[in-house]
């Protein structure tokens, strides 16, 4: 759906439509939209620009990735789940440390390799524009993954730059949001 500002200081956003006889002849979406009753949220933040700007994207990422709530039972937790939960304390294996403030873990996923091993893709992003250069040491943040090769994957914006030297990855702000990417493999 969409949003518009049709007057000074005004904003409006679409919520639902029900056009009986109209068509746009495009896409699979009917203009007569009937659905089971549904509920959706909007969130509003107001403040001075510095305050809102420093929290805007961070808040959006949190709201779009809410804590996942799962039913569980203690019997199952005694097995695999507890091992995962206690990862930070497992012998010789420290879990990932939290990222710096304003640095978002854009990707963290596993890829299976033909040799029956796997590699991990880690991408991080500075999400507070104008906050200055941030340095993230992925070898420390992901201290159980042996970093292998650093490489760049994509450019999302003409201002994004990738700065990678060894295992230290520097996020450069000029002035958009920068993305860096690294590849490692497990022990």
């Amino acid at each position: 759906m969409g949003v518009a500002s049709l007057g000074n200081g005004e904003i409006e956003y679409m919520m639902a439509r029900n056009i009986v006889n109209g068509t746009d002849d495009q896409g699979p979406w009917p203009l007569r939209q009937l659905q089971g009753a549904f509920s959706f949220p909007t969130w509003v933040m107001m403040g001075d620009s510095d305050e809102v700007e420093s929290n805007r994207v961070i808040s959006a990422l949190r709201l779009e990735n809410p804590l996942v709530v799962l039913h569980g039972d203690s019997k199952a937790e005694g097995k695999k789940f507890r091992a995962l939960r206690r990862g930070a304390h497992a012998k010789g294996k420290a879990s990932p440390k939290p990222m710096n403030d304003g640095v978002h873990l854009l990707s963290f996923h596993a890829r299976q390799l033909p040799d029956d091993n796997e590699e991990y893709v880690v991408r991080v992003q500075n999400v507070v524009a104008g906050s200055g250069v941030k340095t993230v040491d992925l070898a420390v943040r992901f201290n159980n993954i042996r970093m292998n090769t650093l490489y760049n994957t994509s450019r999302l914006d003409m201002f994004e730059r990738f700065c990678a030297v060894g295992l230290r990855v520097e996020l450069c702000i000029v002035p958009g949001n920068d993305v860096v990417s690294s590849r490692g493999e497990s022990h």
Partner: protein
Amino acid sequence: MSRAAFKLNARKTSAAHTAAERATAYALAYNRPQGLNRTKLLRKLFPAWDAVGIVQHHDSMTGTMSAIGTYTAWGSSDRNATRLQESLCTASNPDCQTLEDYTARLQTASDNSAEVIAEVLDTKSGQTEETSTHFTVFNSLAQRRTSVVGFPLAGVLDPGVNGVGVRDARGDPVQAQLSRQNDTVYIVANVSSLSTASFDIVSPCTSDCAELPTITEGVIDLSNTHGTTVTMAESTGLPEKINGVHAQHRYAQYHAEQGGPYVLIETDSASPLPAHSLLGSVSAIGPIFQEVESTFDLGYNSSGDLISTTRVYTDPDCEQAGIVEIQHGVPEKIGDNRELIMHVATGLATDGSLWTDESGLEMHERAYDPTLPISGNYHVREHVTVLCLLRYADATISVRRVLYCRPQFAQNARPNTRDRNIRRKTRQNRCPY
């Protein structure tokens, strides 16, 4: 399913897939528990990833765009976008032109993600173990988070009989609040980066039990010690001021017979709901949040009422403390030939500028074009919509107020405007991006 509901599901599915992906990587990299079948997990995640990708691509397709003056991010004309949609569908699934196909893909992605994360965390999904009183909370982001979460009670416990309480993994009581309907219990959960926390719901409860909110008829003003304040209007049942700034919320409806791409081609402003459409308001105050629920009759033979819930979270340290949440409960069918909107008027000088974000989280300006009909000034949203409020006095004063409303919609960029906007931002730095 309406487009709005579909998009909401797409965003939720994307978040669920991300969580499943990270939990899997975490488990494989750090704990590789016995019995965890890596190949099976990754094979389940792939179709989920594929489905989320297809759906997100479709966000940029025609049929989702403004009518005039706006185009997709994929080409300079609707024709190009249509070609892309057709090629994408042909390559991935010859039958994917139907809404049902996209919906089925989303459902597959959602199911697969739920199965993977349940397997990795060794918990049961809500569908299969909904009578469990044990809950696990997983944080898919790489920062420690303090956030309000709700545990459903329906079919599990009846708090009205013996009361319920929430206990953490050590058995210590956790402050909790029941919903007005007694069907959900809310707590503030503190969870480490890429980690989990466990909670149990106990009943009967004799001490440190979940509290029922104090309920009153009519509206109340909402606030927390974080500094968030909401002045509610008795006459509308909706926010009038936020943090002392005028922010008059109103539901309104467009009415037209003429269809057009994305939204109707309209020249008349939407009509605010009349005063008599507000059927009533009820307020609730509890230790976790305060809220005002207002019910509206949309008229025009809509199938039910519109229910709006404005909420402020109490804990100053929780991540929701600085925001005002509004839940919009939309009935199955609004009136024929109507489009329902929420309108917010701040009264502040904005110079006609609206900023919306792209997939890289960068902000692009959408200047108001008076030569276009209303539909031509509508823009698709990705994560955050920013109404950039400019200088009050002269160019040297940089005091600005910013409002953002979180949507759940798609990405868009008008052709040939991207570079111009970026250059403008660089030279003038006149607005957040």
